[in-house]
């Protein structure tokens, strides 16, 4: 059985309000072992369901304040893009979210699994594949402590099919191209069906065409699995093309919080996208009023 088949229904594009009664019934009557790693999509976009919550978060490195009084709620299933100039603190935000770093002040709540396990995954700017493990084994790293042996193998092959690399499962990472390696890294991050996927400029090092391909892949998989995505990027066009909501961080504070209520799939270069892009760029440069 493919991993994707675990998602019983794929929601229509655009805004999806509440879980229907049948969906709820299906979710509640299905034995848990059938959906051991089921994505949180079954909960839909319930406004009560907050995946990540920052409360007065501050982070200082010595005397330098990198993040200051950040208040942010990310509803489950939302695609959030975080934009800012270099050194504005956006990577720190992501490191806090994934537990790689701790805040100096404030409280951070991140949705965990039912047994309190960590269901947050991060995709780095570099693929960070183990050069000494074959592609399938690299994907299985994503199931560390969750599944092993034959089960892990099957799941990793299924997710590799999803990113279009099933035929490369037995190869070494060194023979893959940059874009393919990053797709393997995406498969590794998603194989355990995370609640939250943090993306730290994962497409930054790719060429323009591969980038667009990867954006489409990311959007497609996100629509299928409905995890909460937090994408840190410095590419404004990428942010408005992919995200439901964009926040701009400037000097450690949230300078702009903007919903992108556009239908998917979005067309690159549409006037609506351009208008939103302009608004964000105005906040980043000049027009301090924001």
């Amino acid at each position, binding site marked *: 059985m493919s991993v994707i088949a675990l998602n019983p229904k794929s929601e229509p594009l655009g805004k999806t309000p509440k879980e229907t009664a049948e969906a709820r019934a299906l979710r509640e009557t299905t034995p848990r072992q059938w959906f051991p790693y089921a994505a949180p999509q079954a909960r839909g976009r319930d406004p009560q369901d907050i995946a990540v919550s920052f409360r007065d978060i501050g982070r200082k490195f010595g005397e330098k304040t990198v993040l200051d009084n950040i208040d942010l709620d990310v509803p489950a299933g939302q695609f959030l893009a975080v934009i800012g100039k270099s050194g504005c603190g956006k990577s720190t935000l992501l490191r806090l979210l*994934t*537990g*790689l770093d701790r805040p100096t002040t404030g409280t951070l709540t991140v949705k965990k699994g039912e047994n309190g396990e*960590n269901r947050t*995954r*991060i995709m*780095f700017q*570099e693929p*960070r594949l*183990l*050069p*000494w*493990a*074959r592609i399938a084994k690299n994907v299985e*790293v*994503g199931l*560390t*402590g969750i599944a092993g042996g034959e089960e892990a193998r099957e799941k990793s092959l299924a997710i590799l099919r999803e990113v279009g690399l099933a035929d490369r499962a037995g190869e*070494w*990472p*060194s*023979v893959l191209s940059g874009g393919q390696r990053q797709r393997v890294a995406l498969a*590794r991050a998603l194989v355990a069906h995370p609640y939250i996927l943090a993306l730290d400029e994962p497409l930054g090092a790719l060429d323009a065409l591969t980038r667009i391909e990867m954006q489409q892949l990311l959007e497609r998989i996100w629509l299928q699995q409905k995890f909460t995505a937090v994408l840190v990027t410095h590419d404004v066009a990428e942010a408005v093309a992919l995200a439901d909501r964009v926040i701009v961080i400037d000097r450690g504070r949230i300078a702009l919080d903007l919903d992108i209520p556009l239908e998917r799939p979005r067309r690159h270069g549409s006037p609506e996208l351009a208008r939103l892009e302009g608004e964000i760029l105005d906040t980043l440069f000049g027009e301090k009023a924001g």
Partner: protein
Amino acid sequence: MRTTGRSILKNASGWALPAIILLLWEIAARTGLISPNVMAAPSAVAEAFWRLLLSGELIRNIGVSSARALSGFVIGGSIGLVFGLANGLSSLSRNLTDTTLQMVRNIPHLALIPLVILWFGIDEQAKLFLVALGVFFPIYVNTLLGIQSVDPQLVEMGRVYGMSRSSLFFRVILPGALPAIFVGLRYALGIMWLTLIVAETIAASSGLGYMAMQAREFLLIDVVVLSILIYALLGKLADSFARLLERLTLQWHPAFQTA
């Protein structure tokens, strides 16, 4: 078929130069260009080889020397590996021992021979001690270097994915350090034979070095040359074995992928 033929040819090409040298050497000895007191002809060496092989002396001496070399290597190598791993993984251990080890490393271990003879006589322990000491440092230094050069981004990735300390070690750190450990291994194999030759030549009552020294006493140049050649062959054998291991375990490394 063609590819196997080509690979045999490729392997054989390394042996062409030694074969030509051997041939020239034989001609020079036969024509009297090289006096028999200075250097034995290859045919004389081959004769000596056959004689000693039949008497069983050669096999016994090779056995004794190899056993010494290998046991010294195992002892010194495993201590080196343990210290290398410990100091690579724990800064406490490194702070405690690294300075001391680096100081000891700078003493040429062969300088200890007089002291070692005083301690152990010319018994087996003396050779074991010297070989182990000689082998220890290349393994230690390279293991430590290998662990320190493991990509910290990969270690961070392993942590994010919830790897336990042991699986982080076996899946990320050790494989990352392996290429450097192999460099140390091959270097240590060279030192192993070198140390043993010196130790056996100076003080021994059996082994290849002893055989060579005895032959010198009786002016048997052919046997002296034979022992030197056998040392060369054993060294090459050890190195090939290390290369084979390298090729088996480092398949992922672009340098070892067969085109």
